[in-house]
């Protein structure tokens, strides 16, 4: 069915910035506080109050623009977008229309088919968020304006995506970048990263875009994919029956997995934008841009290349490690202490990740610091302990904040590599299992594993596997 139509998707993402205060006043932006406790005359829209732009919002906008290859406007304006809604106390939202701060950027994504695709970014502009409406079961709604005036970046893509999977790849990439930059906490449930999707279909080969529907405010990657997939099918059905898609805003219903028309807000689409007389023009100098450029952190792509090049790990490992900045920082610190890139990546992706998942901790709060873990990995490399025993030591370190060496000594976990100590144990095992010895000697060499297992059991895992193998083979064959 879908082969007949090409899917065209453009995305508008609202990124809530991590500034301490709101965009135009000094109220805090903390989430989840008592309703209306973080409000003042400016964000309540009281008469006579004057907004003043938070400089950090501009810094963050420039930073995000540079990270997405945008050009930064040397002159930019704030404008009023006029509409009435109870969550908007002033009767207008301060936003940008003409002369947004960033334009003409791009993002590289890998499509599900493994193809590198460039998605254009039309513009990034600064604006204030609206308040929150709480809908009770009764005849009224309640308004909490703590969120009103919280700084947002609206990042608008070109209609360059051709499937819901590409849309998700773009969103995940963008999410990763803003979190890396530290301009957004990336929390989807709390609405720090929200997405509107413009979806339309056109017959394959047709140049003009079809009529689009706008899917509003969806706050999880899974729901965005569901919403787009549903919308594509809905529009395809309409077109198949010879109908016309109406340009409209549609809401995604998480319960049914469908979208429904959001009529009633249609008329309000006459926003009568005009430059806000309360806010003077914003001029961004080359020096300012350079200053921000110098503070750009290493972004995932560069980091992945460096990990592969400098630490000699597989690309797959590098991608996993670089997915989150905190994990990448942890790994970076670990390798710098320890030196063995692959051993370190195995441990960060394995034991460390497992232990963090089990305890529900973020990497930044990992109880075993990179320096401590490096101490443990050194003991694997110099054969003091085996990899298996190391996991046991790691668990003890996790709980106690002690160094590997003290745990190894205290619990007597040193690996036994001394042949003189291993030989008597092997003699004991061979004597106790004459049948298996006979079978092995008759050619059933798989039984070597059985003998290794017995020896490990008797030494509580402390026998050096290489030494053990050597002695076993010598005795069994001899």
């Amino acid at each position, binding site marked *: 069915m879908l082969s007949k139509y090409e899917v065209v998707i453009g995305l508008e993402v609202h990124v809530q910035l991590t500034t*301490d205060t709101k965009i135009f006043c000094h109220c805090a932006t903390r989430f989840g506080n008592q*309703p209306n406790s973080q409000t003042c005359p400016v964000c309540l829209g009281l008469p006579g109050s004057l907004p003043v*732009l938070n400089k950090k919002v501009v810094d963050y906008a420039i930073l995000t623009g540079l990270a997405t290859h945008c050009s930064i406007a040397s002159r930019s304006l704030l404008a009023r977008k006029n509409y009435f809604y109870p969550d908007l106390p002033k009767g207008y939202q301060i936003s940008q229309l003409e002369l947004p701060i960033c334009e003409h950027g791009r993002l590289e994504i890998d499509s599900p088919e493994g193809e590198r695709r460039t998605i254009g970014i039309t513009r990034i502009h600064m604006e204030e968020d609206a308040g929150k409406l709480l809908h009770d079961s*009764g005849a009224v709604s*309640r308004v909490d304006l703590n969120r009103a005036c919280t700084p947002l970046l609206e990042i608008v893509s070109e209609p360059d995506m051709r499937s819901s999977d590409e849309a998700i790849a773009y969103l995940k990439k963008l999410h990763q970048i803003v979190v890396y930059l530290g301009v957004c906490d990336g929390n989807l449930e709390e609405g720090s990263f929200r997405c509107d999707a413009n979806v339309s279909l056109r017959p394959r080969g047709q140049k003009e875009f079809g009529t689009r529907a706008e899917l509003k405010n969806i706050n999880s990657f899974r729901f965005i994919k569901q919403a787009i997939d549903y919308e594509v099918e809905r529009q395809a059905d309409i077109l198949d029956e010879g109908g016309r898609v109406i340009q409209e805003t549609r809401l995604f219903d998480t319960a049914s997995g469908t979208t429904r028309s959001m009529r009633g807000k249609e008329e*309000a689409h006459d926003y009568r934008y005009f430059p806000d007389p309360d806010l003077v023009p914003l001029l961004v100098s080359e020096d300012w841009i350079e200053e921000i450029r110098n503070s750009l952190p290493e972004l995932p792509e560069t980091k992945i290349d460096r990990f592969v090049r400098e630490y000699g790990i597989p690309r797959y490992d590098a991608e996993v490690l670089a997915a989150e900045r905190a994990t990448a920082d942890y790994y970076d610190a670990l390798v710098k202490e320890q030196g063995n890139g692959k051993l370190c990546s195995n441990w960060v992706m394995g034991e460390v990740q497992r232990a963090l998942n089990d305890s529900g901790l973020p990497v930044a709060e990992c109880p075993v610091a990179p320096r401590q873990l490096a101490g443990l990995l050194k003991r694997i490399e110099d054969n003091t302990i085996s990899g298996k025993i190391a996991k046991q030591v790691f668990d003890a370190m996790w709980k106690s904040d002690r160094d590997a060496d003290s745990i190894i000594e205290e619990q007597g976990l040193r690996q036994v590599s001394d042949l003189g100590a291993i030989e008597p144990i092997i003699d004991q095992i061979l004597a106790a299992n004459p049948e298996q010895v006979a079978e092995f000697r008759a050619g059933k060499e798989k039984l070597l594993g059985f003998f290794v297992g017995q020896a490990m059991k008797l030494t509580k895992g402390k026998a050096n596997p290489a030494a053990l193998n050597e002695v076993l083979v010598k005795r069994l064959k001899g």
Partner: protein
Amino acid sequence: MKISREQVEHVARLARLALADEELDALTGEMDAILGYVEKLNNLNTDHVVPTAHAVPMENAFRDDRIGPSLGTQKAVANAPEAADGCFVVPKVIE
């Protein structure tokens, strides 16, 4: 006519103004006169003039990202026609 009665009606609706028929007639006339007067500006050549949004030549007024005191819930809703649980109460917006 610079502006039609329908346009005035539309603008009034956007501004949530309920205008009686005779008010609409009067306002259409007044707005038409105003627009006619302002239209004189179109005779000027403004090809090389940057649109002026502000009369005062000033730019880059910023504040630092430093938290200051807020009003607090009680004061914030003190003048609200209706409030409950620290929230403003409004007629239901979504059915």
